[in-house]
């Protein structure tokens, strides 16, 4: 071995510095030195109810009921997006009605917001996944705002929500809806909205910033939370199972196209009512499926799973939701023993 020309100690120190610095940069990238960074883990942890998360369940929208059906595209959507899902035809749908709660056992009457997750599969092997809610606007403008809302709601400080609302004036529109809009007595009567904007790309390559909604065929029947409570803690899933067993339930999918200057990046702000909208097809819920034993349990209705012809916009939520949903999925699949598929599968 040739003799070192400089002291080995210096060389060893250099090696230690290179390795140490690399490890430090790696740890920094992983967020280990950034306790203030909003990570998927922190966001998902903040969703947990005081008694802890419902193990094995989605960390939000934990209570729900699965269904299968189809999306019947009328072809009109092809003007906006080249996605196969808008070409005339019927495409299989897996979906789930749900309540926006982190508690899988929450009584129906305690949850204000209803949700719908769907996955539409097309013959080209692509998928469109979407998770919508019945509120007309989202409570906050940014994912950071959503995190602050979770902290404020969970806080024991008397003024936490008051301070939150003062800091987030955009919350007023959602608050007004939550307070003043009648509750519905069936998932079948809910209008579900994407709220987030997305970009549709047509065959010519032109981009359209859109939001979409599912409009129910069933006439809404309002009910007070007190009356809903009297019908039982799981009334909504029992009701939809019964209703779908009687007849398939339908929603019209409407795509609304933004005009320049519309708040595409902010789901807490509605677009003006005169924006052009296109009816692109009909969602038919044909069969209610078992929740614990059914096909929805291990599906992540990640709103960033989009077919060619759709992509995310400047709206920051789909990325944040994708990150948080993935975290939730990773946690709950590891907790399968806490939410086992049961042998009977009788509970619808």
């Amino acid at each position, binding site marked *: 071995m040739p003799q070192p020309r400089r002291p080995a100690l210096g060389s060893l120190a250099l*090696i230690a510095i290179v390795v140490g610095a690399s490890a430090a940069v*790696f740890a920094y990238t*992983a*967020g280990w030195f950034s306790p203030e960074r909003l990570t998927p883990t922190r966001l998902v942890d903040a969703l947990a109810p005081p008694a802890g998360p419902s193990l094995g369940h989605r960390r939000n929208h934990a209570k729900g009921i699965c269904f299968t059906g189809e999306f019947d595209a009328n072809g009109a959507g092809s003007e906006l997006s080249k996605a196969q899902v808008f070409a005339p035809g019927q495409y299989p749908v897996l979906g789930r009605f749900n309540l926006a709660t982190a508690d899988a056992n929450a009584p129906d009457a305690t949850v204000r917001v209803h949700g719908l997750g769907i996955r539409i599969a097309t013959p080209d092997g692509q998928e469109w996944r979407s998770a919508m809610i019945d509120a007309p606007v989202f409570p906050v403008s940014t994912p950071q705002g959503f995190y602050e809302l979770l902290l404020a709601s969970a806080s024991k400080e008397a003024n936490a929500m008051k301070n939150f609302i003062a800091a987030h004036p955009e919350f007023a529109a959602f608050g007004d809806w939550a307070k003043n809009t009648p509750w519905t007595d069936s998932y079948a009567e809910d209008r579900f909205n994407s709220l987030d904007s997305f970009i549709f790309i047509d065959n010519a390559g032109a981009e359209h910033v859109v939001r979409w909604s599912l409009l129910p065929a069933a006439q809404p029947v309002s009910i007070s939370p007190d009356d809903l409570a009297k019908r039982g803690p799981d009334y909504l899933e029992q009701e939809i199972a019964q209703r779908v067993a009687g007849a398939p339930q339908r929603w019209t999918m409407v795509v609304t196209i933004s005009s320049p200057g519309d708040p595409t990046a902010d789901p807490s702000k509605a677009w003006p009512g005169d924006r052009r909208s296109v009816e692109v097809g009909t969602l038919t819920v044909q069969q209610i499926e078992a929740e614990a034993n059914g096909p929805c349990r291990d599906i992540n209705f990640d709103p960033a*799973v989009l077919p060619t012809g759709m992509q995310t916009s400047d709206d920051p939520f789909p990325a944040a939701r994708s*990150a948080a949903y993935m975290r939730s*999925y990773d946690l709950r699949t590891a907790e399968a023993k806490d939410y086992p598929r049961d042998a009977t599968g009788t509970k619808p």
Partner: protein
Amino acid sequence: MIGVRRRFSPLQRLLHWLMAVCILAMLFIGVGMVSTVTPKFLPLVSIHKSLGIAILVLALIRLGVRLLYGAPPLPVDLPEPMKLAAHLSHYALYALMIGMPLIGWAMLSAAAYPVVVFGRIYLPAILPQSDSLHAWLWDAHFCLAFAFFALVLMHVAAALFHALVRRDGVFQTMASVTTQDG
């Protein structure tokens, strides 16, 4: 003659340095993407998947080239434990270069996510949907990522040790930019 090569072949050196960049980027993107909810999340995940498949393809090519061309011998005066460490670490690096992308692909398959790479290529699922397989593969992917980074750091430390302390030519077998075998 192959047996007395003093450097890796130019193709091996090219693959090594190309993959070094890819793997380091991959590890940093991996820990970065799972710790953010900003809009960066989606492109990072997208790059992570594409780069993973690229690394898998490059690693398989590299394995073939390695089997074909072999490697220059280690210095005869290298202590046996160091020789053993060198050989074992190279086996581990190859196993991770090939195994990690496969585990990631299998993990996405078990979760029934569409596996899309390079923007438009849909890869088939290589496992059926399964919560238990997903959980197991996720743990493996997560733990092995840190093991991989630790191994890369050890590899760098060993390379620098050869270059700066032992000065025994091992570093030059891969670092040299000349096309001559020497």
